[in-house]
């Protein structure tokens, strides 16, 4: 029986860097996120631990020699990760940590064997070192080291240019639609500014067969999959062409054709649903996974914990992508949780996890691509925490300068801009130039304005759509209510919007 007892990771000292496969650690201030090491290796988070590779039931140990007590006693639990790129670390582990406790009595309880210790040690609540953040490109768009990740090597000019193209389109879409809201043409809008790389690079790393269960800051996946600017505009205006029949607030997109399940406003509800979707994919032996997106605030909801636990227990192909953008409306992450972000929560549920630089399109691409392969071929969940920053306000109903400094926003908007960073890399490859840029921006702007103009003129959905789809078939109470409403409208037409066809 595979034992998946997990020890809490936070206490582990990782001082012996020599034995970690990562190269070129760079500490980088991520502003609100504090100091997080950047790491240029794609080895997943679990590579910080020693596992006997090749064994399905490995001894799970920390790397490092300075734990004050006996980590092997404290952490001598069994762990079943099939390990990813961690053999090097294993070979270099000090022997003292690979031994079983001399007093090899163990508590053989229903969850598996746990060794005893005579040391009364409380696991520390704070990690000595934060989990590093995987990145490929530095802020100038230069690869940090020579990276031999096949995903990036194989990234064709065509795909890379489409990625850049989509990132720019997403950025411009936000500018134009945001402005349309300010002009009062649409009622509400939410921008994705600052998170273009997570949106587009993750979409590029997935297949269209993968089911997306989004929150509301991931329109980039739809864009990548072919949702047209007019389709976006139709939803924002709630017109007759809106797939959602004008029933939901702007930005609650959905597309059956593009495997993008319609957005709902409640936070975290899509997460346990995504596990059910993934279970169905597993039963059907599909070459696809479920992918669900959410923010840092979401991780405080019960549904987040329900979903991670269900996914781990049910061994389903699913990727959880957390956009840790530092802010849940006005609540900063330090008022949201006391853990080292989100990534550390994965292993607590028995889930492989990685932290990536969400503003590095290549890092996101490589991590999601790898996670997808693991999720499907090994039928397991993977958690990705992408560190980023919400450059825009929470929504058009929010003014974020009331709770965070303008400097901070400007810094992330300019110095840490994911679109600019990716552009530099594409340019350095000789795949993009100023002329292309100008042409793209002109063309997207034209398409956006046209989309708005057309969508604005399309009539609203007919009144019958108020009553349809509550149930598969219209029940008698709704039939009755529709009849009554129509009579009232006849009596008082001035009370009702004239642009809704009767």
């Amino acid at each position, binding site marked *: 029986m595979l034992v998946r007892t997990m020890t809490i990771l936070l206490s582990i000292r990782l001082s012996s860097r020599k034995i970690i496969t990562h190269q070129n650690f760079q500490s980088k201030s991520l502003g609100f996120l504090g100091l997080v090491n950047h790491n240029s290796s794609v080895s997943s988070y679990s590579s910080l631990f020693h596992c006997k590779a090749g064994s399905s039931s490995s001894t799970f140990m920390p790397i490092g020699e300075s734990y004050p007590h006996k980590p092997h006693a404290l952490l001598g639990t069994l762990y079943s990760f099939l390990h990813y790129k961690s053999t090097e670390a294993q070979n270099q582990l000090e022997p003292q940590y690979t031994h079983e406790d001399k007093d090899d009595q163990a508590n053989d309880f229903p969850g598996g064997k746990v060794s005893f210790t005579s040391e009364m040690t409380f696991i520390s609540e704070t990690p000595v070192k934060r989990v590093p953040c995987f990145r490929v490109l530095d802020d100038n768009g230069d690869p940090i080291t020579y990276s031999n990740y096949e995903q990036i090597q194989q990234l064709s000019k065509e795909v890379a240019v489409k990625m850049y193209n989509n990132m720019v389109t997403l950025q411009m879409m936000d500018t134009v639609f945001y402005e349309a809201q300010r002009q009062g043409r649409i009622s509400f809008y939410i921008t994705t500014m600052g998170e273009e790389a997570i949106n587009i690079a993750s979409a590029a790393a997935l297949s269209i067969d993968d*089911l997306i*269960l989004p929150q509301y800051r991931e329109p980039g996946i739809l864009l990548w999959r072919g949702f047209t600017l007019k389709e976006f505009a139709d939803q924002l205006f709630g017109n007759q062409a*809106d*797939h*959602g*029949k004008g*029933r*939901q607030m702007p930005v*609650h997109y*959905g*597309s*059956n054709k593009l495997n993008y*399940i*319609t957005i*709902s406003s*409640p936070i975290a*509800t899509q*997460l*346990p*649903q*995504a*596990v*059910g*979707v*993934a*279970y*169905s*994919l597993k*039963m059907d032996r599909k070459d696809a996974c*479920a992918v669900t997106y959410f923010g840092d605030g979401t991780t405080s909801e*019960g*549904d987040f914990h*329900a*979903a991670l*636990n*269900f996914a781990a*227990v049910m061994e389903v192909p699913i990727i959880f992508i957390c956009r840790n953008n530092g802010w849940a409306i006005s609540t900063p992450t330090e008022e949201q949780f006391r853990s080292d972000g989100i990534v550390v929560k994965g292993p607590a549920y028995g889930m492989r996890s990685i932290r990536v630089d969400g503003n590095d399109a290549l890092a996101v691409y490589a991590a999601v691509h790898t996670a997808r392969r693991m999720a499907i071929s090994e039928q397991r969940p993977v958690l990705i925490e992408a560190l980023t920053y919400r450059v825009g306000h929470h929504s058009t109903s929010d003014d974020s300068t009331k709770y965070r400094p303008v400097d901070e926003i400007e810094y992330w908007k300019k110095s840490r801009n994911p679109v600019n960073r990716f552009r530099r890399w594409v340019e350095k490859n000789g795949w993009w130039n100023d002329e292309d840029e100008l042409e793209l921006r002109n063309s997207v702007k034209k398409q956006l304005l046209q989309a708005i103009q057309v969508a604005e003129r399309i009539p609203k959905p007919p009144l019958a*759509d108020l009553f*349809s*789809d*509550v*149930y*598969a*078939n219209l*029940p*008698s*109470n*709704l039939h009755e209510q529709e009849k009554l409403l129509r009579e009232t409208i006849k009596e008082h037409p001035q009370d009702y919007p004239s642009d809704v066809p009767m």
Partner: protein
Amino acid sequence: MATALQRFGRSFILISKRQFSNSSTSCEKKIAQQSGKSLNLYSAINQALHIALETDPRAYVFGEDVSFGGVFRCTTGLADRFGKNRVFNTPLCEQGIVGFGIGLAAMGNRAIAEIQFADYIYPAFDQIVNEAAKFRYRSGNQFNCGGLTIRAPYGAVGHGGHYHSQSPEAFFCHVPGIKVVVPRSPQQAKGLLLSCIRDPNPVVFFEPKWLYRLAVEEVPEHDYMLPLSEAEVIREGSDITLVGWGAQLSIMEQACLDAEKSGISCELIDLKTLIPWDKETVEASVKKTGRLLISHEAPVTGGFGAEISASIVERCFLRLEAPITRICGLDTPFPLVFEPFYMPTKNKILDAIKSTVNY
């Protein structure tokens, strides 16, 4: 089919005191020894689940402790027969169970989720109200989770106290987009559950746990369905209409029998589906009798009886000869020692019948 079924009450083994049976094993044996047609309610549910899994390879049964047969034995034998991929335990987390079920149903499966007690359905309230109920509507019918059925045992058992006795149906009756169904007997349970599982809408199916072992009647062995949103007149009468659902109907039936001895003719209606409910059948009956009594175990204030009362006043105002009466649970948490005081008992109903008729 419905007409061929025996009417409620005729073949029931009723125990006058509401007590939770402790003699489960002997009870089970008794049923096993019978012809295979006479079943108690949990066995009827079990048979329906067998049929649902048998007839649809995309049907799944899951929830807390369902693998070994469930704490009420409703899922007995399913995992052995259909495998652990289709019948499985979930972690102890109701919001996870329903959320998972919605996702599974959204992929075109029949997701049959069990919530161990209706008292514990509240963590899943958000998933039911904000997600399952609106899944089709908010997507413009691009997506739906119509394959979802949530089963939950509800109601008094004699010793359940606050958290093993509640009747939370009214909360869910305020939610457009789901259906709420409560069966009264084994044959009803089987036919209605199969309808719910195959209905293209998400359904919350409350099972009267008091009747799991106590109610025994002949249940056809074959695959049959009973219509949703259709009430049934289970006892015809001319002086007063009584409306109820689930376990309460047996108490109301006893009150009707006693009233008959006093010369009062009662018409008893099983609503079966609470939303969308069959107003027409109740309306027709009240127009005939001129009087209405509604009874449910849930607290009277804000209970579904209030909705029925309001609707019938709207439709039958001039035909009513007395105020509509509600005999329901008290507006207290469900109590342990005081359960006999809390309950809408036969004599409370009988007294109300008499005072309504003599108004």
